[in-house]
């Protein structure tokens, strides 16, 4: 009996407890708020707010306001979407009536962040940052980093065939452009015109470019500008979220995949990315480009610790493997071979069958990058920041050789580098400054066993630098000034033609300074003027290259007499709304470089047992580059947007009174995009019709090149993107893309392949990205 009483009592207590619990579980909570643009806080009308756990959502009114009722207390995943914006997943706790403002990044304008405020780690230079956001990265999926960057006016590519491309910023490339890979300057064999940066763009959430004047903080090699790959802040959400993406392309039967996942633990936030790509021979409108397949693998991890408000720590590691075939018909011996190759309509060794096989000649690259960043906040207005980067770059290049030596690399380099940067940042009401010291060490080794005298010697590069950047803010104006002093020591062990090892020690003391002015002319128009002086010491390849460079089929000779390059550059950038529906950005520059170092073809050919070879020698000349790029975005209607971009550079070799080699010709891009919303089950449809035109480069010295620049050409591209939603409200983006839709036959001035073959013909892609 007693037991039944107890049971009764217990069940009663339980019922009471349940009742109390249900009573306290007030499921009448309201979530209300607003959805606004991250940049200008403008209300985003008719945005959708969807609570995943409740499978319910609402549409904002014309002021971007929303209300959702009948919510029980708890933590919820909320997906906020808007036409033309990247959807965002928020994880918030709703315990009582809550008013929340959600920020979305409107991708309409893919650039222009004039940062009047922000700390030193965000505004890296005084100039405008041109950013390619996630949405645009998706629309460009399957392309290389450099190709993606060409959507920014003023950025072009220097190519060696369909797989190898280097970014070029306002006519500068290689040793004059720095790529900042998650905060660390990328160290590879960037001197080679046929060496693409060893980075998978899928490891970044956004990619930006600063044009010019970036040398103060990132070193004198950033004379022409910097490319920045960075992750976005990992949201505080204790579940795995992310996306996966597949791209299929018809030209080269390319298939690739990439995935990103993020999670926030109590101790640390984690982001992982992985990707692969496999492609076979590309095709021009008329023939296959035999041996132009490639395969890539990449992986990266971020672990960041934000448990303390005073101390932030972040670890990053990335690995990139890349195997690139080089057009079989572009591998030639001496000048006779080269001239014979020029006269051919279809390159030698062209197969009439497609193949995934990657034979010789080819490049294989492994790149590891490990980074540690720590930031210590002394108080709200001052902090210390330390970056450490360790990189290993292994590059093997395989050539066509005799007696089964094809498997033996003809060039085998191992570059180990270290980067340490420590700065102190302090800000007061209207003054902020950053003072830092930096040490870099690069150790280059030719891996023995190639059986060929090295083109680049073994060397150690020690660089120590100090810099000071200050910003003074007034009402509508901000003045920025910077100074960098850099000491560099090269230790070089060169093997000469008599097989003797000769050791050199060289020291350089160089500097850079800039003065910038940012000003808001009106609420909608901002301008920046930046004057910079950079004194770049010659790089090891410029001083010591020696031998046959297969990539350029010439004998390259370094020049130990070279002095530092002095660059004086003025950049003037504009960003403004000239009418409510028209936005204009422009970047104009004037760049005078004395002792501009370049590979100059020599008049006499060198006689060898393999015949005559052209000789190229590094020399310094006086150069002038001036030009600019301008982009106009005009919203014709709510759905229809027209944009146009124009870039042009005038370049002169003052010493020779001629044009300068390898300067991009005039480029014009026109895009018409039509975006409209909910239609049946499709949440967004965006169609872009693109037209691009490259003029013929006429300002060249014909004595400095083998062939005249190719003719002008135009290309038509078209793409359509559909956004669907999963049952849980997550986005699925599907894109169809056609490049060189008309299958035009053309050659590009800045592609070495132009000596041998046409550019690739039409390419159709299917691109799917799914978020979870």
């Amino acid at each position, binding site marked *: 009996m007693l037991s039944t009483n107890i049971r009764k009592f217990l069940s009663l207590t339980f019922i009471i407890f349940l009742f109390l619990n249900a009573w306290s579980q007030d499921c009448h909570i309201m979530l209300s708020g607003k959805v606004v643009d991250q940049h200008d806080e403008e209300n985003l009308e008719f945005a959708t707010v969807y609570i995943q756990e409740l499978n319910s959502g609402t549409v904002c009114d014309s002021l971007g306001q929303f209300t959702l009722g009948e919510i029980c207390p708890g933590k919820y995943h909320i997906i906020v979407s808007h036409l033309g914006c990247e959807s965002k997943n928020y994880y918030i706790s709703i315990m009582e009536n809550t008013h929340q403002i959600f920020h979305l990044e409107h991708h309409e304008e893919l650039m222009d962040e004039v940062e009047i405020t922000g700390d030193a780690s965000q505004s890296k230079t005084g100039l405008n940052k041109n950013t390619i956001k996630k949405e645009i990265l998706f629309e460009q999926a399957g392309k290389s980093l450099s190709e993606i960057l060409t959507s920014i006016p003023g950025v072009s590519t220097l190519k060696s065939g369909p797989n190898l491309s280097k970014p070029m910023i306002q006519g500068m490339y290689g040793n004059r452009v720095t790529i900042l890979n998650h905060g660390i300057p990328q160290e590879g064999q960037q001197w080679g015109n046929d060496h693409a940066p060893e980075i998978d763009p899928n490891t970044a959430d956004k990619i930006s470019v600063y044009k010019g004047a970036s040398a103060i903080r990132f070193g004198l090699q950033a004379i022409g500008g910097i490319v920045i790959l960075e992750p976005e802040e990992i949201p505080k959400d204790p579940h795995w979220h992310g996306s996966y993406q597949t791209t299929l392309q018809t030209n080269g039967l390319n298939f690739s995949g990439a995935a990103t996942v993020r999670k926030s633990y109590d101790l640390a936030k984690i982001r992982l990315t992985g990707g692969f790509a496999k492609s076979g021979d590309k095709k021009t409108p008329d023939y296959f480009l035999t041996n132009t397949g490639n395969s890539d693998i990449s992986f990266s991890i971020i672990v960041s610790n934000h448990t303390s408000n005073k101390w932030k720590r972040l670890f990053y590691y990335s690995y990139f493997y890349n195997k690139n075939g080089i057009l079989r018909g572009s591998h030639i011996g*001496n000048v006779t071979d080269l001239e014979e190759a020029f006269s051919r309509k279809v390159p030698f060794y062209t197969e009439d069958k497609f193949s995934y096989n990657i034979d010789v000649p080819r490049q294989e690259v492994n790149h590891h990058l490990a980074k540690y960043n720590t930031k210590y906040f002394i108080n709200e207005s001052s902090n210390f920041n330390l970056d450490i980067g360790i990189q290993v770059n292994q590059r093997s290049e395989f050539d066509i050789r005799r007696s089964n030596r094809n498997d033996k690399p003809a060039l085998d380099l191992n570059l180990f580098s270290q980067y340490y940067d420590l700065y102190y940042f302090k800000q007061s009401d209207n003054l902020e400054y950053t003072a830092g010291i930096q040490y870099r060490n690069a150790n280059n080794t030719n891996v023995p066993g190639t059986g060929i005298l090295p083109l680049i010697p073994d060397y150690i590069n020690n660089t120590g630098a100090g810099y000071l950047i200050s910003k003074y803010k007034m009402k509508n104006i901000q003045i920025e000034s910077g100074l960098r002093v850099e000491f560099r020591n090269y230790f070089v*062990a060169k093997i000469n033609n008599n097989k003797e090892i000769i050791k050199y020690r060289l020291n350089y003391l160089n500097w850079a300074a800039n003065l910038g002015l940012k000003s808001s002319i009106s609420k909608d128009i901002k301008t920046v003027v930046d004057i910079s002086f950079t004194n770049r010491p010659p790089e090891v390849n410029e001083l010591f290259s020696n031998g046959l460079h297969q990539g350029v089929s010439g004998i390259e000779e370094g020049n130990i007499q070279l002095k530092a390059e002095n660059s004086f550059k003025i950049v003037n950038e504009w960003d403004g709304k000239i009418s409510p529906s028209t936005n204009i950005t422009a970047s104009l520059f004037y760049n005078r470089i004395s002792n501009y170092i370049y590979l100059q073809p020599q008049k006499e050919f060198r006689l060898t047992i393999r*015949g005559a070879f052209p000789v190229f020698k590094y020399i310094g000349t006086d150069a002038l580059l001036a030009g600019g790029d301008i982009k106009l975005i005009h919203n014709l209607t709510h759905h229809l947007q027209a944009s146009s971009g124009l870039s042009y550079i005038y370049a002169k070799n003052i010493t020779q009174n001629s044009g300068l080699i390898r300067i991009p010709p005039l480029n014009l891009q026109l895009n018409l995009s039509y975006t409209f919303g909910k239609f049946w089950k499709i949440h967004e449809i965006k169609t872009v019709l693109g037209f691009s035109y490259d003029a013929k480069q006429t300002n060249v010295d014909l004595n400095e090149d083998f062939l005249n620049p190719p003719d002008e050409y135009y290309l038509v591209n078209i793409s359509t993107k559909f956004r669907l939603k999963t049952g849980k409200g997550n986005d699925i983006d599907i894109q169809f893309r056609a490049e060189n839709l008309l299958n035009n036959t053309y050659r590009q001035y800045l592609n070495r392949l132009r000596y041998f073959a046409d550019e690739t013909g039409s390419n159709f892609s299917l691109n799917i990205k799914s978020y979870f």
Partner: protein
Amino acid sequence: MNTKFLTFGMSIAILALFSSCDKDPVVPNEEELITTVNYTLTPVSTGQTVTYTFLDIDGDGGNAPIISTIGELKSGTSYNGVLTLLNEAGNPSQNITEEIEAEDKDHQLFFAVSGGTVGKMVISYDDKDANNQPLGLKTKVSTTGTGTGKLMITLRHLPNKSATGVSTGNITNAGGETDIEVNFDIVIK
């Protein structure tokens, strides 16, 4: 925390300073290099042997190559031509001719006479590769009349031996990559 941070930074900086500061590269053995081309013409019956030599011991760059001729080419004579390739940069020197013989399908030599000896010095193949196509390490040479001109000897790696004219010694459609290309002055007396 502040001091901890600085200590950490300092120790890293010190670590960095200990990185090595000397390099001792390994001098590569350039086994693929061809330093010497010898083209020896031995009369079928009697007479003087003629040898044409192109010598560039230090490879591309460095000192200029030495081109020499020993002996006199006589008019109205038949010669057996033998071409040898050597790598004399290392010690002992290496016979590259053997490498070419081993990969005979992937190689072909071309002999082009120009100037005043055109038609007066006629060179034909006297050997075949595994596919019964010409190779050119062995040749038949016959001379008629006198004059001075030039002889260009080219070795192509991976030529298209089945292209038009290639099997008869016309280089025009051969393609491939040039492994040697040397010129000699020819005097027929």
